[in-house]
């Protein structure tokens, strides 16, 4: 079963770009949430992750802060 993946990101953050690129290369579909234009999502991300850095990757409710490739791989079983 495919896990539901969300990426909270800003368009200017290199690690966001890398994270999304990695997901695409791994054929993982995801919802891209641009927190620079979506204030509500930005607040939700800050509240849920307890921090203010992007990217935050939500894999079926599990939050990964930053582009931690190993954690993403483990969580998705890649």
């Amino acid at each position: 079963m495919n896990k539901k993946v969300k990426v909270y990101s800003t368009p200017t953050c290199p690690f966001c770009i890398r994270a999304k690129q990695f997901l695409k290369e791994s054929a993982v579909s995801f919802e891209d949430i641009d927190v620079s234009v979506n204030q509500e999502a930005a607040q939700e991300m800050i509240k849920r992750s307890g921090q203010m850095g992007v990217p935050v990757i939500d894999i079926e409710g599990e939050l990964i802060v930053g582009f931690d490739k190993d954690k993403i791989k483990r969580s998705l079983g890649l």
Partner: protein
Amino acid sequence: MYDLIIIGAGPAGITATVYAARKKMDFLVISGDIGGQAAWSGDIENYTGYQFITGPELASKFEEHMRKYGVAMKEPESVLDLKKVDDKVVVKTDKGQYESKTVIIASGKRSRELSVPGEKEFKNKGLTYCATCDGPLFAGRDVAVIGGGNSALDAVLQLMKIARRIYLINIVSHLTGDPVMIEKVHESEIVTVMNNARVLEITGDGMVSGIKVRCDGEEKALPVGGIFVEIGLIPNSHFATDIEKNALGEIKVDCHNRTNIPGIFAAGDVTDVPEKQIIIAAGEGSKASLAAFKYLNQRR
């Protein structure tokens, strides 16, 4: 045992990789990231061939060029130690150990930290070293930018569009960035420039709520919801314990990118080469790779 290990995959490391691949050397790349500081840059208008390109775009062009050769790469992986043992170099990382006849250190620089109480505690909790990345999350807030050079001014210019109020906290008596940027900062009604100001402490409860500053001999507590640290860079040379460095911690190289240890070369911003520019780092990376190739040939 490899012919060559390249540490770092910024402009210097990637260019070294391209040259090593074309010389058909047996090599490995070890890096914490791809693109290095280039990936963090805003607009680039001085890399020949591109009149305008953004940092992330240029970094992905570099990566594409490198991947074309199908290079062996360990990423993300951090080098912890590097030792010359007899005729080989032993590289220890957080994940393993590798041996090579030659090494190119192209590990670049990272953001300098303030070293004040509260900095570690509130990192990513309102305190950030990347205004370009995290800036948009601070819309409508009062924020402080620490620094007085171009990167601090660049952060202020980005935040002027979204923050409510900005304190620019500068440790010396005047701002040192480009006059064009200083002018824009002075013209803004929401920016307060504080010169001769030293940060004492970051305060908060879970998230940043303030900053304590000593300004002109007086202690002030400013209520802010965001702090952007832009006080320069330090070289990633901590693992190179046996290698000669200058007072700034930059690895000393000669004009052939040789360090004091035969077989170990260095290139780019981690070295004492004058001027830190993407195009210079790239050129230095190619020189280092060719120097390593010649070194290997002389020993065959």
